[in-house]
């Protein structure tokens, strides 16, 4: 199978790789670029552990082909902290102890960031339904929702 040359931008950096046309973006990120922050929890678009953004849209990278990223902007968990400074969402996840095994955490952070970018002032219900596609088997979700609400307040410049 001949490979396809893909040029794309990941977290602002231009990268190139050769991909089998059937290879998922998730596998390309993990295996070709060594960016293992995005996880595979199901491979079928049901768990959200592989969440990334593609030109700003939240997608399951296990359902996107690597070649589809050509010429696009990919955003992954590795790009959420900028210049070594944690994003408010990341800080609040630590502060609220919103993770246990942490396997779902990268996907949830990417998804939550995408939510706050389009809706800076979500209700608790909006947060819960937005994150309904991100499974977590450990936490019971309570602290995750609180951390997102608190980070949203922080980003709006309100003290929560």
């Amino acid at each position, binding site marked *: 199978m001949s490979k396809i040359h893909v040029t794309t931008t990941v977290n602002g950096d231009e990268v190139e790789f050769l991909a089998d046309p059937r290879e998922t973006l998730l596998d390309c990120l993990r295996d070709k670029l060594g960016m293992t922050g995005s996880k595979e929890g199901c491979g*079928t678009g*049901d768990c959200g552990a592989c969440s990334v953004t593609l030109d700003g849209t939240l997608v399951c990278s296990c359902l996107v082909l690597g070649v589809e990223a050509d010429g696009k902007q990919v955003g992954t968990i590795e790009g959420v902290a900028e210049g070594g400074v944690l994003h408010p*969402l990341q800080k609040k996840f630590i502060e609220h*102890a919103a*993770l246990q*095994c942490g396997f779902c955490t*990268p996907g949830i952070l990417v998804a939550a960031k995408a939510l706050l970018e389009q809706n800076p002032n979500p209700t608790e219900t909006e947060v819960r339904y937005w*994150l309904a596609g991100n499974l977590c*088997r450990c936490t019971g979700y309570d602290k995750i929702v609180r951390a997102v609400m608190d980070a949203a307040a922080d980003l709006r410049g309100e003290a929560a």
Partner: protein
Amino acid sequence: MSVAKPLPHDAAPLHVTGQARYVDDIPLPVGALHLAFGLSTIARGRILSMDLEPVRSAPGVVCVMTSEDLPFANDVSPSAHDEPLLSDGSVHYVGQPLFLVAATSHMAARKAVRLAVVDYAEETPILTIEEALAADSRFEEGPRVYGRGDVPAALARAPRTVSGRFEIGGQEHFYLESQAAIALPQEGGDVIVGSSTQHPTEIQHKVAEALGVPMHSVRVETRRMGGGFGGKESQGNALAVACALVARATGRAASMRYDRDDDMVITGKRHDFRIDYAAGFDDDGRLLAVDVTHYTRCGWGMDLSLPVADRAMLHADNAYWIPEIRITSHRLKTNMQSATAFRGFGGPQGMIGMERIMDHVAHDLGLDPVELRRLNYYPSAQAVSEDASGGRISAKMKALTPYGQVVEDFDLHEMTEALLASSDYAGRKAAVAAWNAANPVIKKGIAFAPVKFGISFTLTHLNQAGALVHVYQDGSIHLNHGGTEMGQGLFQKVAQVAASRFGVGMEAVKITATDTAKVPNTSATAASSGSDLNGMAVKAACDTIRERMAAYLAQVYQADVTDVHFADGHVTVGTERMSFAEAAGKAYAGRISLSATGFYKTPKVDWDRIKGDGRPFFYFAYGASVTEVAIDTLTGENRILRADILHDAGASLNPALDIGQIEGAYVQGAGWLTTEELVWDDKGRLRTHAPSTYKIPACSDRPDVFNVALWDGENREDTIYRSKAVGEPPFMLGMSAYLALSDAVAACGAGYPALNAPATAEEIWRAIGGMGDEL
């Protein structure tokens, strides 16, 4: 002092930036191979022929192995040596590994296994409880029976009785990180294994057996798991052994991970149960006799089914004193995945059986289910400790479990009182009744459930742990112990213990991966025992070093050893004060050993599982919950509206971590009893093998109101800082979600709901249909 602080998880900064490494994230050397199993497609029979030529010639395939290529032990069982890694020609379930492929990529290996042509002589599988009983297909020679008294006579004498049958489904672990392992070949035939396992020593043992080498040739490392829940106690053996075999055969690194559907099809799950029961009681609701029979489908291999079924029996009383009781347990061998450990380890199944009985009795008498429960509770710890009467029905006698252990620490009387008040149970129960009287379609239900869970491995020798601590001359501390981190925050808790022993901040302590080369012969991180056992072992190691340092410094400064104190990052010796780092440097220069091992074994436990008699548990952990739900009587759809929890973690080592465990456990427990349904078809094929068909709770399912509090108490037993284990006990708090759904169904008619678990929308709808006319 660093214990009892709500510090975040030690690796939290790594997790939120995506840098925390799980097994499959570890960079592999060039030339590493990726493995996949070829799986059986029938539930029972023999392999007549297996054509693997198309597999061998598939792109990227480097080697293919069958059982005939295994030089030594072909076994990955944790117990009875009855689970071959690769089929020996016989097939026992759909999804059994038959052969192994190593290829240049994960995808190439997965594609290649599908090319095999396997011809079987198919036999009729044993799938149901009836089929297993008819064929007498079981583990152990017959049912195990625990109890006391003459139960049939007592039931015959009882003023009132109820009886029934209750089915309880199994549960898929759905750890978000599926099973994974890697093996790196070393010189001289040694191997280093990285495994997502709760039990590195077992991995080491099984790999050594398969390679025909002593355990010292195999080193197993586990930094973290992406969830375990019991599913990584024995189910990771196959992957680690397969990787080690390929690494040995090819001299190349080997890596294996199950895709989600393979993981669900291959690995064992929680045991499902059928419980037949009869209970005799008086007109006030006092239980006189209970007869319960557990039937559990263990699947094809023994795995951990015997201790799981035992623990179900040991929790068949839950929180209640039952004068005469008989618990019978059938461990049935069926052609399905070999059921395995899952949070609670049989305890939840035994306990929900008893709670179902309590509910049925309350319904029969028209009593408030909480009052009935309180009436039958074991006596309070205080009553037991003050009891000197020795009379026939003394508190001590009423504190005796069916297996002969005295319940000495029963706190549920006080906890129940506190939770009923904080959750406004009485007010909300009245509101639910008023709602149900006014609303014909949406019905509500509310229920309370208590939890009493025994802590210790029932296999007594497993109750031991080791630790290794080094203090470096700059005052930094390296900490290792036998427990594994699966998200429960064990490493954090244990590091807090170390920091507090030396009076230093957490930054001084380095928590390192579990490693069989550092601490040998460890038990699985299971039975909620992680911090109890390893915390104590770490404390012992730290105290050894601390005593050596204190003795030396006392001698140098001519002080009494009792005047040496470790606090606030400093050591004071009489009037001298120095940083901990200075003290460590001085001790090093004084040629004092700054490395020590620690060891701990749980006291008091002593148990005979055949007789069903003794003290299996060091202590009990308690909890209680109240859940309110609403159901749509036309469709069976339902929601948890509110959950209130009060849980006993003793003097909590870390309230933030413990509350997180409790919330997650409740949601997982409620999932088990509500949405999580496993379906096998009549060929024994698992039809729910992906999150699209198997529904674990999602963020949108979280209760609208979720109040979780810790009971303010200390462990009466001498555990690490008087804390209590918190991994498993809160799982069973989810029982109140099931009981509340049953309460809502009960509002649809006069009878007692025939509602089995999981109470899915379909099951609720079916149960409503069986309720007859409206009240």
